[in-house]
């Protein structure tokens, strides 16, 4: 009986000795829709030096490198800042419309004609620029035809990244 009681005592004391105490804290993280758009390049000025250029236009492949970071599915759209190009040289035409320009992702064959109305040029999934489809190039095509005077013209393009 002594032995039993001694063992019981040891068991109970061992149980009592292995105490643990606990405390807890709680917190949270609030994540908003986060998007980032990076544009590099876009500085190539096309030269119209032949009849063919005026007849068929000039295409610049890989004109612009675009990187998208987004934690939601995204849409990239583009529009012209103004309805017409601005001539940078004296005597230039003031009526050359933005529709002279068209753009498309390099992986697409579907050129979008530029206007002052925003148009979707690409969509994608959440992720950084390593995610499939979130880093890509744009091709651009200039096709003024024969209606406008020679010179240097400018037109602002506005790219807008939004969440779906």
């Amino acid at each position, binding site marked *: 009986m002594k032995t039993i009681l001694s063992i019981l005592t040891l068991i109970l004391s061992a149980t009592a000795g*292995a105490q643990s105490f606990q*405390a807890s804290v709680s917190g*949270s993280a609030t*994540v908003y829709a986060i998007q980032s758009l990076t544009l590099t390049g876009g500085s190539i000025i096309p030269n119209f030096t032949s009849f063919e250029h005026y007849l068929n236009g000039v295409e610049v492949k890989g004109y612009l490198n675009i990187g998208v970071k987004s*934690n939601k599915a995204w849409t990239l759209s583009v529009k012209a800042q103004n309805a017409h190009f601005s001539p940078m040289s004296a005597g230039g035409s003031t009526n050359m419309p933005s529709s002279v320009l068209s753009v498309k992702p390099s992986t697409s064959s579907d050129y979008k004609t530029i206007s002052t109305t925003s148009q979707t040029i690409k969509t994608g999934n959440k992720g950084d620029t390593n995610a499939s489809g979130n880093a890509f190039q744009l091709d651009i095509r200039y096709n003024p035809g024969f209606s406008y005077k020679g010179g240097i013209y400018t037109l602002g393009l506005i790219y807008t990244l939004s969440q779906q």
Partner: protein
Amino acid sequence: MRLFTFFFSLFFIETSLAQDANNFLQVNTNATLNFIFDDPSDIESPQIIPNAISIQVRSKDKSCNISARLSAFTYPYSFVPSSSMIALNWTSDNSNKKFNLNPNPVYLNAMDQLLFSQNKHPQIFTYNYNLIFQPAGYDMVPGTYSFTILFTMTQL
């Protein structure tokens, strides 16, 4: 003799339980444990709340281990966590009885992770920790991510 042994057993247990008054674990928050992610820089690098948590420990009669784990972690439906996102990083303490202290960020999961051990001593010692939220980049969909950290003092 039986009666003596019985009362001896009761006395021993009561004494062990009475030691609770000498053992102490308290966790204090020194800041609101709320992270805000609203900028690309937030989501691309760890966010830190400096000295967010203080752990006070007294273990008078036995050495002890202090560990922590995530007892709860909830997140938006479409998010799939791939690795531990919450970590504690020791910054300072006033203890001269600590050992096995991990000075590096301790990333928490559902299993207890040892923060430090402390030799028995009647004094209360305080250990301060940064709270780190390691974002999962742009896979972190908008919404609220909530967590509860459970600290456990286990006597050795």
